[in-house]
């Protein structure tokens, strides 16, 4: 199966840095920000965006969490799927600006589930979406606010995001 690397380690680092700058820009600063990573790779991305925000803005107060969406999926055909912990920062999400973070945006169904999960936990002032790769083929009216890389793909291809802590190295490859 031919593999094509579309983002290497430095591309990913640059994308994370750029997303961080864009988050600060649209939010006019880091006030009230809550970053929630969607397992599994969204969690590591959220951690890295959090680190990067702290480097850029000395006044940044970290509110980092994890949002598990297993119980909210509409395609939970695999009941063996492991339920992971949801960790919401102690200050909560009410009236905050929540940035949902995932690795790949595809059909939009994961994000739909995440929005449902979020609404059961509280009422954010705003919800934004950051993804490392947007590969198109949306099935729902959902669009990202921050994108690392737009990657036009065919539905037959597979996009694999690998991240240093989860997979040992940083890269995004397309399997054809």
């Amino acid at each position, binding site marked *: 199966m031919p593999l094509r690397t579309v983002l290497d380690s430095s591309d990913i680092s640059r994308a994370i840095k750029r997303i961080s700058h864009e988050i600060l820009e649209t939010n006019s600063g880091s006030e009230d920000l809550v970053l929630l990573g969607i397992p599994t790779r969204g969690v590591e991305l959220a951690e890295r965006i959090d680190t990067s925000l702290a480097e850029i803005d000395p006044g940044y107060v970290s509110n980092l969490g994890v949002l598990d969406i297993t119980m*909210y*999926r509409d395609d939970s055909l695999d009941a063996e799927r*492991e*339920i992971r912990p949801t960790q919401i920062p102690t200050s909560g999400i009410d009236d905050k600006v929540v940035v949902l973070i995932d690795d790949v945006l595809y059909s939009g169904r994961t994000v739909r589930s995440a929005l449902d999960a979020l609404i059961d936990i509280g009422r954010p002032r705003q919800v934004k979406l950051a993804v490392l790769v947007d590969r198109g083929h949306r099935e729902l009216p959902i669009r990202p606010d921050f994108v690392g890389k737009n990657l036009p793909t065919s539905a037959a291809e597979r996009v694999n995001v690998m991240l240093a802590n989860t997979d040992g190295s940083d890269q995004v490859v397309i399997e054809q």
Partner: protein
Amino acid sequence: MKHLTSIRELDTGSAIAILDNADELGAVNSREVKKLPALRGKTVVNLFYENSTRTRISFEIAAKRLSADVINFAAATSSVSKGESLKDTAQTLEALGADAIVIRHPMSGAAQTLATKGWISGSVVNAGDGSHEHPTQALLDALTIRQIKKSGDDLAGIKVLIVGDIQHSRVARSNVLLLSLLGAEVTLAGPETLLPKTFAAMGCKISHSFEEALAEKPDVVMMLRVQRERMQGTFFPSEREYAAKWSLSGERFKMLGNQTIILHPGPMNRGFEISNEAADDPRSAVLTQVRNGLSVRMAVLYKLMAGEG
């Protein structure tokens, strides 16, 4: 996995996976919105041929937390009292669209019969069949021990003493199977009449003296209810004599270690198999068991029902 009628259907990995999921699902109970949409549109029927309060309510709340519709069916107030057979009742529920049947029945093997006869296409959860098994009770006990002892994934090396009316206890059978599967060392203690030697074949130690068993310093002491409703004949001379030898009270209660967990599946007969002193002690985890019962039943219903859409 489609049915849960016996702990024998689980292996170590799947048992741990249920406990892990139950741990995560427990968090929902402390949220403001205590509901998850995972089983939306599914119907769970509680089919209870025996009286039960806590197990039925626990299954009912568990199913509702997962957004399933719940129908409670108590045999005493239904056509069963007019003589309807289990088969006809099950097929009626099937025709009405039940996706899962949670069954409690006085006959050992009833849940398995329901699961294997092909009368229904949904899932079957055993909520206690005669003196055979009560798998979700064992799972909630294992979860409680794991949480309090912080023993990691399994229960390796933890010494559990189960005391009382072993012979009539489905809780004891399911617990022996599950706790051993998870690596715990299980000892059963009870009078000869209520603890047949055949239990040794299940791979646990047997003792006919509560004091001797306590001298082994168990990490967990699980007291069982004396099931008078299942006793035909005399198994002990009098309640007073049973309590004098087998109640967790007085000197025996003082023999417990500082960190020993006291468990009881409920309902407790205070003053009979357990003293007030023991039941209300900080080491008693009876209410933690009830809370974990809810999480475990959510995890089991989710495991059996999600994904057949």
